[in-house]
């Protein structure tokens, strides 16, 4: 699905790579007003910077000519004024350009997010969420860094470096040429060393991840570690990965120390011709002391822009690789789409019909589900049972077209593929096996099921239906209680009941429960089931369960074994016909007895 590359960009051709980045540049150009303002500030900042140096230098030259220093007072305020103007433009430049880069970042994240939401479950099952999140975070950041602040620094350098050199060339062509070459070495150093640095810092990051993995394993397996007397062994192993990290850190320091030394040396060397050739010219009286100062001060000021140029050049390959990883997500196409002539049903009764339905997960050797044919008349209940991995959840997921089934599934006689997704999924409500809830308020979680805000009475009614009233009343903030990470932690049973309430908020024609009562005690379960039946007269229910008691009253029960239908019938019929069903029923009954011992 998504390529598993992380660090090394693939060997793609140069024009191709540039085209990818251009796509992202275009996103920036959508904000051309702010960008234009920001870019317009850049030459002003550079011009002020050069102006200041020239004034300082000229002042020294005038002092050398023994002029009356009274001019210094006026100059002092002029300098402060120009510096203030420069500061203002520097502020605006940063505000506009970096600001745009953040806006583009947000737009890109939103687009990626919407894309991910639209991709079918088959995509999500196959990709690791960590990988997707890193595309949405660090990859987006890499691209932003290059096109946003990166281009700001490049543009700044493009004004500052040639501008300064031109001014200096005007003063003394020889000295300027002589000092340009070492400055060029700075850029070269950055271009060569930045990828090396990135490689080494990746190695450091990876060895840190290795430390984390070792620690994680050692702490998670602490019983085995201690039980086998492995403490000394584990400490030795931990020390080894820690040493590897140290080795990489030292290598990284060597490369970055080398880069640092090289950059500063190049810069220092640029002053050698200033000192010798410039000094010569001063002895020759072709250069004033103020001119020498201009060389020194402007040399200092172009130092950082020159470094920045190399730095950006070094960032380039990583940004291109990230651009590619982002595009991989944006280029994904959803296979579950509405037909062009998709229709809606004016009202849904809730009759389901399955004909030879099967499903194979991508890359799986055998189908997860095969040859399912059955009818669920509107208003009846279908129970689905079978051992772990027999295909119960897969079957339930096919009903709402989360996966695209082979064979045919019909709702009220109409194939689900020819219905709009709004019509199909609007008629369904689903209670997931993992009882997924959002870390949000209790109210928001219930309203997630409804098409709009619910009034107090409706909410209370839902809570009552799932037997949560006393628990919700006990929450410090009642319905507004935050649940999950930052709020109260719900027990497994409470989560399941809340998921059911969320599904009921939809008043669905077809209610799908995926082992949704496993963590609820049997007494609460039977109360809940009774209340569901009362409230949902005429509603079709499809319920998968491990506990056979849950499906006992269903009109039909389907027994699945390794994806195949083993038997279909009522509870009594299955006790006769299915050995697995009978044995499981016996065992579960005894277990209940023992619990009361």
């Amino acid at each position: 699905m998504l390529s598993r590359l992380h660090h090394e960009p693939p060997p793609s051709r140069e024009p191709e790579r540039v085209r990818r980045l251009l796509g992202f540049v275009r996103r920036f150009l959508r904000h051309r007003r702010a960008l234009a303002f920001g870019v317009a500030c850049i030459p002003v900042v550079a011009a002020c910077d050069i102006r200041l140096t020239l004034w300082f230098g000229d002042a020294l030259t005038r002092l050398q000519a023994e002029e009356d220093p009274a001019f210094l007072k006026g100059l002092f305020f002029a300098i402060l004024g120009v510096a203030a103007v420069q500061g203002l433009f520097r502020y605006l430049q940063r505000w506009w350009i970096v600001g745009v880069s953040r806006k583009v970042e947000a737009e890109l994240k939103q687009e990626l997010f919407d894309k991910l939401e639209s991709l079918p479950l088959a995509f999500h099952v196959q990709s690791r969420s960590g990988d997707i999140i890193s595309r949405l975070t660090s990859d987006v950041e890499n691209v932003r860094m290059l096109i946003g602040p990166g281009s700001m620094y490049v543009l700044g350098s493009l004004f500052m470096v040639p501008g300064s050199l031109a001014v200096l060339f005007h003063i003394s062509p020889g000295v300027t040429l002589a000092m340009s070459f070492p400055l060029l070495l700075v850029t070269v150093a950055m271009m060569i060393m930045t990828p090396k640095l990135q490689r080494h810092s990746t190695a450091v990051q990876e060895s840190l991840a290795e430390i984390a993995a070792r620690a994680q394993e050692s702490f998670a397996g602490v019983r085995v570690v201690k039980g086998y007397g492995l403490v000394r062994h584990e400490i030795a192993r931990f020390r080894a990965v820690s040493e590897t990290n140290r080795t990489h850190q030292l290598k990284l320091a060597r490369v970055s120390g080398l880069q640092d030394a090289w950059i500063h040396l190049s810069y220092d060397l640029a002053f050698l011709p200033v000192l010798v050739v410039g000094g010569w010219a001063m002895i020759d009286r072709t250069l004033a002391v103020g001119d020498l100062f201009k060389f020194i001060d402007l040399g200092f000021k172009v130092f950082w822009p020159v470094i920045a140029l190399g730095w950006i050049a070094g960032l380039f390959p990583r940004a291109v690789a990230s651009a590619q990883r982002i595009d991989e997500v944006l280029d994904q196409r959803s296979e579950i789409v509405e037909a062009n002539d998709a229709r809606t049903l004016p009202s849904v009764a809730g009759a389901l019909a399955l004909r030879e339905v099967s499903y194979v997960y991508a890359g799986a050797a055998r189908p997860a589900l095969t040859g399912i044919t059955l009818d669920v008349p509107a208003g009846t209940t279908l129970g689905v049972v079978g051992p772990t991995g027999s295909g119960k959840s897969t079957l339930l997921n096919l009903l709402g077209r989360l996966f695209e089934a082979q064979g045919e599934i019909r709702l009220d006689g109409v194939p689900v593929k020819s219905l709009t997704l709004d019509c199909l999924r609007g008629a369904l409500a689903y209670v997931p096996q993992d009882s997924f809830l959002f870390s949000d308020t209790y109210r928001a979680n219930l309203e997630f099921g409804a098409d709009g805000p619910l009034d107090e009475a409706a909410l209370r009614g839902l809570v009552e239906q799932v037997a949560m009233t006393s628990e919700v009343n006990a929450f410090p903030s009642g319905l507004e209680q935050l649940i999950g990470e930052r709020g109260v932690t719900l027990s497994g049973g409470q989560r399941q009941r809340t998921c059911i309430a969320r599904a009921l908020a939809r008043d669905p024609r077809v209610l799908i429960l995926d082992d949704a009562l496993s963590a609820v005690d049997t007494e609460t379960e039977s109360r809940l089931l009774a209340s569901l039946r009362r409230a949902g007269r005429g509603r079709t229910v499809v319920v998968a369960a491990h506990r056979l008691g849950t499906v006992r009253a269903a009109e039909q029960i389907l027994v699945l074994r390794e994806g195949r239908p083993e038997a279909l019938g009522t509870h009594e019929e299955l006790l006769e016909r299915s050995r697995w069903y009978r044995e499981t029923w016996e065992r579960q009954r005894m277990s209940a007895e023992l619990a009361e011992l």
Partner: protein
Amino acid sequence: MANALAEELDKDEVATKAWDSAVLGRLWRFATPHRGKFALSFAILACLFFLELASPWMLKHAIDGPITAASTARAALEGGEFDASPYLRELAWWGLAYLVVVLLAAVFRYLEENQLTRTGQAVVTDLRAHLFAHMQALELSWFDRHPTGSLVTRVTNDVENLNELFTSGLIVLLFDMIKVAVVLVLLFLVSPPLAFLVLVLTPVLIGVSLVFRGGARRAHRSVRARLARLNGYLQEVLSGIRVVQVFRREQRVSRRFGAQLADVNEAHFRTIQLFALFFPIVAWVTVLIQAGVLWRGGYAIHGHAITFGDFILFWFWLQVFVGPIRELGERYNVLQSAFASAERIFLILDTPATLAEPAASRALALPFRGHVRFEHVSFAYDPRSPVLSELSFEIPPGATVALVGATGAGKSTIVNLLLRFYDPTSGRITIDGVDLRELDTQAFRERLGLVLQEDFLFTGTVRENLVLGRAHVSPESMARALEVSAANDIVQRLPMGLDTELAERGATLSTGERELIAIARALAGNPALVILDEATSSVDSATEARIEAATYELLRARSALVVAHRLSTVRRADKILVLHHGKLRESGTHAELLAHNGIYARLHALQFREPE
């Protein structure tokens, strides 16, 4: 709502002190063994600093020396023939000296980062190992109380923060202060009035830097917290994508994500604003100082109080002076997060390991016979609810004792006590007649054959997993173990045999295969005493039969304590102990207990899997 929450998040990360001498004192104890490295770091920094100061000084002498001398001489000649060569020669010498200095500086600059990293890493690697070893010594319940993720953070991020402290934090900060002081003195030597001017304006620079520091930290914290929330939401939506799609809530969720993105950006914009203000303000204050120096310096030059060379020297040294002051805020922040990390680390180091080794632990007497006695053993994690009461039983050498009971009956507590994860609240456990508390725990555990319900395998090769660092496991005993446990063909099927790397938790193997490998691992040590907590997970019947056979081999002719889930295992046990609510309720052989028709008879029908 979203905004109120975002603002609340901002306050969340608790600020800590940036300077804590008690913490620093403890950290210093980890640094003292590496005193030499610290001294060398300091020496290199000092040399580099000296060279940094030297190059402008040479520039000054070139200007005030040959260049000025030449122009005075030429002026004195009044248009006569001027011979520049001696002056040029002197200038060339200064150039050469400058070249030597900058080359030396490059060498020291290279050494600087190397040595700082070497120093920091030396301290931090020690500290990390010490911390990890200490954590390993803590008792089991401590690990149950702390989420694994946060423990991992202690040995990774927190230790990394301390690395920062030792490399770019403390040493550099200390040296920066020395630098500022030394340069200030030098500035006074060049020109007292100009230096005085700098001294007066410097507090403005420090003030700006410190005010900004606070703002930057708050802004960064707010960005971090909001970004964490955004990424958390993203993670949440990805894991609940089924629910989002079935409920057709894509747009609603997307809007919500958008709102959180806006929150993040609001914080970003505050940061941008801050930095966009800070850099120009610092630059302006720097220009203010420079312009002031030019104004006063101009008069000084005019009055011949200083030379042009002095002025340029002053100008350069001023740059050296301003640099560290600008970075003061940044360094302060490094210190602050490092101290917070140090506190978290010391909190762990201050947790005592409760199961103290006896003052004089007794080595396990060999040959180890595996004779276990529980004598009136009671245990409670919490005094109000005892888990075991007055339990006595014996495992004679070579006998298998099976524990049976419902969940919570106390079976795993007995295993934990025999492994000495905990000590009994009262009563005692003896091994070959010696109180378990007096034995060298590590040596005792190494001699056990242990198969736990979580068949935990480590990343590493299959061989490493079989040996597990036990010195007495030989290649022969390992081969024999694989043979009798029928795990041989599992190993043979693997691409590299025994040298195949296993993924995290042995994920490359199936459940049944992992269980067989775990049994082979126990067998490899040829243990006299086996502790077996049978897995409850279901495997296919062929594998089940193999596990049964391997279990039989494992238990044959050894003392064994078994938490049994397989009928075959329990049937073969010499004695079955039936526990109920921490008390021994029934005991006897399988046949005796079935005949008794009590708890065991019911449990038997319920728990023990018979092959289908």
